[in-house]
C-alpha cells in the first residue's frame, strides 16, 4: 500500500530516528443472547492507521481514519510534533530502543473455517439451541450465550525497512447458566477464554453437552454448602482457573514496563524487580513458566509484535527462579538488554502499543500424574474449577481469588460440592507452595481476551495453560 512508503519517507525526512506505521482494520462480531432474546447483534469495523515517531529519546503517536496522501502526511507531522514536545521533557531521561533487524514477512492465524463467513443464522441457531437446553432445567432462570469473533488485518512498515502483512483472529464462546434457589443465585460458566482458531473449534466443542453440564452444575452449586471459616488447606486448581491465577500473579508482575514503574499511576508496579533476576525463588522447583508468542492457536501469536519484533519462546521462571521478563524495544534497554522479547502490542489502530503479557504457560509435571491420582493423594482440600472473583494489589503481591465450581476433597475423594469459596495468598508464598503438577496429557490452554491495561485503557489477549496442580497450606474459606 502506497501509504506505508509515503509515511515512512515523510517521517525520515522530518528527522525521525525511528518511525513505524500500522494500518489496521479490526472487525468484531458480537452476538449476545439472553433467555432466547438477542440483546446484541453487531458487526463493527474500525479502520485506520497509527504512526509512531521516535526522536530525541521520546515517542510521538498520532492516528487517523482518513486515507489520503494529505491526511497521512498531516498525521506524520503531528506525530513528529508530539515527539518533539515529549523530547523537551525527556532531556535527562531519554528512552532508547533495543536494536532490531528488518523483516519482510506475512503471518496469518491458521483457520479451517473463517468464523466471520459463517452465516449469522447458523450461529444464532446454535446459540438458541444452547439457550433452550439450559432453560429446560427447572431452576435455571437465566441462560446466556455470548459470542465474540475478532479479526485484525494489519500492514506494518518501519524506517528499519520492515514490511509486515499480519492477519490474526480469534473466537470466544461463553455460555452461562444462572440458578435461583431459596433466596440465593449462583452461576456456572463455560468459558475457555477464546482461541486463535476458526469456526471449526466451535463445531468440535459440542456446546449442547457443555450447556447440559453447566446447567446441572449451576443447580448443584446454588444448593451447595458454604465452606465455613478460613483455614489452611490444600488447593487443587484446574487449568482454566490457573490461567487467571498465573495471569495476575506471574504475567503482570513480569511485564518489564511495570517493573520499570511505567504503570505506577494506574495498573501498578511489580515486586519482581531486576535485582531479583536469576536469583529470586518465585516458585518451587517444579514451577516453570514459559513466555511463548509462537504457541499454536495462541492469542498472542501474531508472527511479529507491533515493534516489528518476531514472536519468541523463553523461560520467565525456570526451576522456580525468576529468569526473564516480557519486554519491548523501549523497555529492554532500561535494564541493559540489547534485545526485545517482542511483547509490544496495541489493540486498535488508534492505540500506541504497550508492553503486554505474552502467551504464558506453566509447563506440565515431568512425572506421570493424573488428576484422579492428585485428588486421591489429597486428604483435606478444595478442588476449584473455572474462574471467579479475582483481586490483587498494585505490586502484585497479595491476592484473593474465587472460582466457578468447587468440591471439598476429603481423604482422597470429592466429598461435597461447595459455593462461595475464596482463597487468599501472596507472592512468593503461592507458587512456592506448588508441590504437584499433572503431566502433559492433562495440559490445556485457556485464553484471556480482555486484559485491561494502560492509559488510555487497552484490552489485549493472550493464552495461558497448565495441567491441574496442587498448592499446599493455602488460606481457604467461604465468603460472607
Amino acid at each position, binding site marked *: 500500500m502506497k501509504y506505508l512508503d509515503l509515511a515512512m519517507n515523510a517521517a525520515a525526512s522530518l528527522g525521525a530516528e525511528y518511525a513505524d506505521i500500522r494500518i489496521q482494520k479490526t472487525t468484531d462480531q458480537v452476538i449476545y443472547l439472553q433467555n432466547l432474546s438477542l440483546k446484541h447483534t453487531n458487526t463493527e469495523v474500525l479502520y485506520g492507521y497509527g504512526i509512531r515517531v521516535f526522536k530525541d529519546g521520546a515517542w510521538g503517536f498520532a492516528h487517523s481514519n482518513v486515507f489520503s496522501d494529505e491526511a497521512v502526511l498531516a498525521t506524520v507531522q503531528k506525530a513528529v510534533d508530539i515527539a518533539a514536545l515529549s523530547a523537551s521533557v525527556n532531556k535527562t*531521561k531519554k528512552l532508547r530502543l533495543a536494536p532490531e533487524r528488518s523483516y519482510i514477512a506475512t503471518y496469518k492465524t491458521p483457520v479451517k473455517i473463517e468464523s466471520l463467513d459463517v452465516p449469522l443464522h447458523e450461529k444464532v441457531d446454535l446459540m438458541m439451541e444452547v439457550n433452550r437446553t439450559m432453560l429446560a432445567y427447572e431452576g435455571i432462570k437465566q441462560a446466556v450465550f455470548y459470542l465474540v469473533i475478532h479479526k485484525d488485518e494489519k500492514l506494518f512498515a518501519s524506517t528499519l525497512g520492515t514490511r509486515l502483512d499480519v492477519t490474526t483472529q480469534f473466537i470466544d464462546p461463553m455460555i452461562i447458566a444462572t440458578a435461583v434457589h431459596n433466596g440465593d443465585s449462583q452461576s456456572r460458566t463455560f468459558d475457555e477464554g477464546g482461541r486463535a482458531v476458526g469456526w471449526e473449534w466451535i463445531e468440535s466443542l459440542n456446546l449442547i453437552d457443555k450447556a447440559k453440564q453447566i446447567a446441572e452444575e449451576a443447580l448443584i452449586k446454588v444448593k451447595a454448602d458454604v465452606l465455613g471459616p478460613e483455614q489452611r488447606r490444600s488447593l487443587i486448581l484446574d487449568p482454566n482457573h490457573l490461567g487467571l491465577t498465573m495471569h495476575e500473579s506471574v504475567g503482570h508482575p513480569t511485564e518489564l514496563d511495570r517493573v520499570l514503574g511505567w504503570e505506577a499511576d494506574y495498573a501498578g508496579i511489580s515486586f519482581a524487580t531486576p535485582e531479583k533476576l536469576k536469583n529470586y525463588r518465585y516458585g518451587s522447583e517444579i514451577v516453570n513458566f514459559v513466555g511463548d508468542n509462537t504457541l499454536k492457536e495462541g492469542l498472542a501469536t501474531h508472527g511479529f509484535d507491533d515493534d516489528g519484533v518476531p514472536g519468541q519462546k523463553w523461560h520467565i521462571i525456570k526451576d522456580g527462579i525468576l529468569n526473564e521478563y516480557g519486554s519491548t524495544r523501549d523497555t529492554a534497554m532500561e535494564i541493559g538488554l540489547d534485545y526485545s522479547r517482542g511483547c509490544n502490542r496495541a489493540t486498535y489502530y488508534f492505540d500506541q502499543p504497550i508492553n503486554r503479557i505474552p502467551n504464558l504457560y506453566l509447563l506440565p509435571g515431568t512425572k506421570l500424574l493424573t488428576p484422579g491420582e492428585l485428588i486421591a493423594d489429597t486428604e483435606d482440600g478444595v478442588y476449584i474449577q473455572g474462574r471467579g*472473583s479475582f*483481586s490483587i*494489589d498494585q505490586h502484585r503481591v497479595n491476592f*484473593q481469588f*474465587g472460582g466457578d465450581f468447587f468440591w471439598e476433597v476429603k481423604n482422597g475423594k470429592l466429598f461435597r460440592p461447595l459455593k462461595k469459596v475464596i482463597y487468599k495468598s501472596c507472592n512468593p508464598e503461592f507458587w512456592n507452595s506448588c508441590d504437584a503438577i499433572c503431566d502433559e496429557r492433562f495440559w490445556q490452554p485457556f485464553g484471556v481476551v480482555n486484559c485491561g491495561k494502560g*492509559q488510555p485503557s487497552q484490552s489485549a489477549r493472550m493464552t495461558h495453560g497448565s495441567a491441574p496442580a496442587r498448592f499446599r497450606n493455602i488460606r481457604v474459606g467461604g465468603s460472607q
Partner: protein
Amino acid sequence: MNAEKIALYIKNHCTADDYSLHLNKSDSHQTRFAQNGITQHIAGEKLEITLNVSFGTKSGSCTVNQDDDATLSYLLKTAEDMAKLAPEDPEFIATAAAAKLPEVDNCDAETKALQPKQMVEIVQQAINKAKAIDATVSGMTEKHYGESFMFTKNGFVGSNCSTNFAHSMTLKKGSVETKVDYDAKRFAPFSLDKDFARLAAQAEALQGMQSFEPEKIAVILRPGALQELIWFMGWMMSRRQSDEGFTPFTDQLGKPFFGDKFSWYSTLQRPELSADPYNHEGIPAEEICWVKNGVLQNMPCNRHWAQKVNAKPCSGYNVYIPGADVSEEQMMQMVPRGLIINRFWYIRTVDGKTGELTGMTRDGVLYFENGKVKHAINNLRFNEIPHDATRRILALGATELASSEMYVPTMLIDAFNFVDKTSF
C-alpha cells in the same frame, strides 16, 4: 462530523421498519509520563457510527468509523442483513419517540481549546516539582472533546457535546507512593500547585509506615475511595436483574435497605457534574432519586423491562451523594480509633447475590487514635458488602467532585471488614 449528511443517507436508504442511528466523534490528546519522563504521547480524532435496524421484531446492528458513501452503504447493508437473518425477539421494543431533553452544559470552550504545548508544560512542571523534593512522579494529562448525536425513525433526536480535562499524579518518595487526580469537564479550576501541594502533604504524612493487622475497624473514606465502592454497587442495581432474583436488591424497592444517613441521586442541578442528556435507548436524563434516607426508591430500568413491569424507564448518568459538614478532625473524635483511606483498588464482586465485594486500599492508609493521626500503615484487603456498610455510617463530610461524574462526601463508617494485609 457531518451528522446531517450521515443522517440523510440513512433516512434516504434504510428500508427497515425501525432504526436508530448513533454518532460519536472525539478529539483527544493524552500525555502519559512515568518516573519523571514521558513514555507515551497520543493524539487523534475518532469517529464511530452505529446503526441499529429492525424488521418486525428482528434486529441487527453495525458500527463503522468512516463516513464516505461506500462505508455508509456497507453499514446499512450489514445491519439490515443481520436483522433479516436474526430470529424474532420476544423482548423487542421499538425505538424511542421524540422526547423533551434537558438543557445540559457539558462543554467548555477553554478546555476544548487547550493546546498540546500547555499540557506538556503541566507535565514538565509536575516533574520539576517532584525532582525538587527528591521524588518521582508518574501520571497522565489528557484532554477530550466529544460530540454525539442520536436519532430514530420514530422521531427521537438528541445531541450532546462534552469536554474533559484530567491530570493524575502518583508520587513515589522513598517507599511511599500516593496519588492525587483531577478529572472534570472544565480545565479552569485545575491548579497544579494546589494538587501537587496536596500530593506532597499526603506523601509526607505516609512516611514511617507501621505494620497493621486486618480487623473490623472504623474508616474515614475520602471521596476517591468512596467513588470506587459506589461504581461497583451501582452496577449491581439493575431493576431487571433484581426483579429476577440475581442481586441483593431483589424485593427491596420502597424499603429501608440502606442506612438512613445514605441518599443517592443522579442530578442535572450540580453544574460541576457532567450529565449526558439521554442514554443509548433515548431515555432522557432527569432528576432521579435512587436512595432517599436509606430507602431504595429506584433502580436503573431499560425500556423493555419498564414496559413489562409497568415502571418508568430510567438510567443513571452521574452520581450525587449528599454530604454534611463533619470534618475529618471531628470524625476522628467520634470513634476511639480508625483508618483514613485515600483510595481503593482492584475491587471485584465476590458474590453477586449478597453484593459482597473485595478490594485493596491504595495510595495511603493512616491510622488514628484518640482523635489524632498516629502513623501510616500497610495496605489492607477488605471483603465488605457496601449496602450493609451504609447502615454503619456515623458521619458525613462535605461533598467534593471525585470525578466529572461523581460528587460525593467523605464518610465515617464503623466496623469496615478488613481481612488481609499486604507487605507495603
